[in-house]
């Protein structure tokens, strides 16, 4: 399951969602708003999402995970709007019979979201605002 939300992310709900009697392992990743970048202090971040395309890309990522690993449940949530330092901007949770698959699928999930999902962040710093636009590898 994948979601884009304007509301705070409750990680307990994610863990409840992936918990499953057949699963021996659950892995949770959270990305949080950091108080600095390479140049100095960051007070908040603003996330912008191309909603319709993001939903499709996230669904493709979930489908790819299901073909690559034997996992039991998967959930990914990304925030949109303005977030303060310390708030969770993205969370991925995966459960599987054993830990190896859950760790690998969770890493692939967050890496793919960062690389492919049409989501952008703007940093609010002491010197003003700046869109973060990663350089294509």
């Amino acid at each position: 399951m994948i979601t884009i939300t304007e509301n705070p992310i409750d990680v307990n709900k994610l863990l409840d969602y992936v918990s499953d009697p057949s699963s021996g392992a659950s892995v949770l990743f959270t990305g949080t708003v950091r108080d600095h970048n390479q140049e100095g202090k960051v007070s908040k971040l603003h996330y912008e999402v191309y909603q319709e395309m993001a939903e499709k890309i996230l669904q493709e990522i979930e489908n790819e995970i299901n073909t690559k690993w034997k996992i039991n449940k998967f959930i990914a949530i990304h925030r949109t709007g303005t977030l303060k330092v310390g708030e969770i901007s993205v969370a991925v949770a995966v459960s599987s019979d054993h830990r190896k698959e859950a760790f690998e699928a969770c890493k692939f999930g967050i890496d793919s979201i960062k690389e492919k999902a049409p989501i952008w962040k703007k940093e609010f710093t002491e010197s003003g605002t700046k869109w973060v636009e990663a350089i294509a590898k």
Partner: protein
Amino acid sequence: MYKEELVKQLLSIKLFASLRQAMNSDEIKIDIDNEITVLQMKQIIFETFLNLKKLNIPFFVAVNHKHAMDSDIISIHDEIALFPHVSGG
């Protein structure tokens, strides 16, 4: 005998992040003749919106929510979006 006339049509293009901010709008429109390629669309955009060209931000084109290539054919019935490299997470 009828002379076939080229009917100009308005193609809407969604903008995101720094591109949206630079244009102060979440959408731009260009005149096109029926179908064009993505490359032709980029050329028209740069001729029409000089400030977008001056920005010199590398951007991607999505057609109907999929990354497009310069050779792809588009019309006003497609959903077109321009955006810079993603930075979610």
